[in-house]
């Protein structure tokens, strides 16, 4: 699953719900939700990474979208944590961001997309 990079967020009529950073992703009612919007108040505030991971672990298969201070250098971390779309901050270079998503061939640890770590794949 590759992250969809969005430069302009539009309200598209899907059943979406914004989850604040201080709300436990474990408790959100997922019934009928098509998209969950998570927020980065600053790109250095990493709470939404864990929220996305927990939502995917709970089996949520809809869209998880990153909003706020979204920079191209964190897109890979977002994708691996379970985000499926990200609305870039205005000044970001989307084309370069696309390239950065495929910089690494593989990682050591498992994540929201590739559950098993490298060692389990090798073995």
């Amino acid at each position, binding site marked *: 699953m590759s992250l969809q990079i969005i430069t302009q967020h539009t309200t598209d009529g899907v059943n979406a719900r914004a989850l604040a950073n201080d709300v*436990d992703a*474990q408790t959100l009612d997922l019934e009928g939700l098509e998209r969950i919007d998570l927020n980065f108040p600053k*790109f*250095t*505030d*990493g*709470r939404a*990474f*864990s*929220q996305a*991971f*927990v939502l995917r*672990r709970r089996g949520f298969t809809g869209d998880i979208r990153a909003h706020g201070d979204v*920079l191209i*250098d*964190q897109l*890979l*971390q*977002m*994708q*691996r*944590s379970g985000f499926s779309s990200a609305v870039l901050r205005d000044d970001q*270079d989307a084309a*370069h961001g696309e390239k*950065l998503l495929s*910089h*690494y*061939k*593989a*990682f*050591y*640890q*498992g*994540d929201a997309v590739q*559950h*098993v*770590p*490298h*060692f*389990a794949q090798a*073995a």
Partner: protein
Amino acid sequence: MYQYTAFDSEFVKARAAQYRDQLTRNLAGKLADDDFRPLRLQNGWYVQRYAPMLRVAVPYGELNSAQLRVLSKIARDYDTPSAELLNQAQTAQDKIGGIDAPSLVTNCGHFTTRQNVQFNWIPLDKSADVMELLATVNLHGIQTSGNCIRNITSDERAGIAVDEEVDPRPYAEVLRQWSTLHPEFAYLPRKFKIAITGANEDRAAIEWHDIGLRLIRDDEGNVGFKIYVGGGMGRTPITGSVIREFLPWNQIINYLEAVVRVYNGWGRRDNIYKARIKILVKAEGQRYFDEVEAEYERILESGAHHTIPQVELDRVSACFVMPPVDVVSDEAQEKAEQALVAQAKADKEFTRWLQQNVTSHQNPGLRVVTLSFKRLGQAPGDATADQLATAADLADQFSSGEVRVNHDQNLVLPWVRIDQLADLYQAAKAAGFARANVHLLTDMIACPGGDYCALANARSLPIAAAITERYQDLDELFDLGDIDLHISGCINSCGHHHSGHIGILGVDKDGQEWYQVTLGGSDGSFLSGPAKAGKVVGPSFAAAEVVDVVEAVLDVYRDKRETHETFARTLNRVGFDVFKAAANSARNTTARAS
């Protein structure tokens, strides 16, 4: 030591390439400084008082000689400011006054308490070149700074200590791999440090870490971890609390994932001084522990993907290749020991070196030797380009090409044959590494302080130099015995002043340097007792008073001690107040405390 796999090497090279792209965009104005800062920090690049600082990761302190030579090359070729910058920096430093200070030093590496290596003068526009050079020998600066899981530290004698229950290195490596570029944990509330030991004696100060891990065996001999969480120094020194008495070894990643995930969600982000996990653990206590256990259960129920299979532990363990050290016959062993005794009788300095800088090894034919980087004329833990190269040569000649950077800012040679000790001593002496002061007063810990660091409130190195100068007499140092003297230039506590038997903390008052002295701290070693922060001795002292304060405190020790009683024990028995009074009596420029 650990043999890097093709996967590891390729990964480090990819990281260097990623960094070059980020630096290029920053220098071209396409990546703003504020957006670049956290990225460069997670590659070890700070911008300090006068120049950038690079912190190179040394996983659990292990370096091979090829890596040391690259560090030497970096010191020689890159750790050089322009003449103008150096002149400007030195002029600014000279204006501080108050105490004699050594000049700023260039072309030099610096060993840190967390077993890393730092450089103080590399220009930022050369930083990507340096990362590529480091990657040629599998070195990097991944997560040596920033609010992420930092380089994992361990016992300097991991895998060779005679008091070891379980070799911690394979577990440290498994955790290094797990924490490296973890996508979810790159922007935690604050930095996150893990230390791991498998020995009875704690040489890694584990209770002073965000997570401290102790490998133990249960009654049936099964290996597991005792887990401490929430230790840390800084403004609020707290030692870790036990969150698990015994966790089966193969669950360690799953469990730490729970510890860090709950911290990521719950840790404070509104105040940098309250953002470490220690504050969360203190504030929430059992509620935090319960949530970690609940999250751990959810991780197990959802597949426990990071359970470590035995084959993986075996594979990683096999990467720690034992050097091909000859098995010494009993007869040769006895002969070598007799020769040592004879040599030691003839040479008092050699005896002292054997006593202080050499210790026993799991292999009876080998010894563990510490090269001391604590000597007159050089800052604690500093090594010039030439000294780094010489250390590499000594490692090749005497220690199967391996060294360890230790918590006390020295280098340890882990694989020295008993019949080569005398030759090593001569070579180390010629290189200036054989000062027999390991664990003694002058084997002090000091951060770079106000000479280099932008965070420092005061300089550490002139204080370290003044104490080193006063205590040059080895007879006196031996008489004083094992003493932990730790100096930090600010409350961030990189010099671990909280855990020193004698701690010195630089503070700033009205633009001037002052020093708070603490007594009775402990890193958690047998010598020092259970980990705890020292107590403050009254108002802070002027820079020029600090050496006299140290001397006054040591004089009380000499006066009050019982036979063979260490400083730490005497302080404990006689009590803080007697030492405090002596320290305060050394005030001559600051007002005497009432």
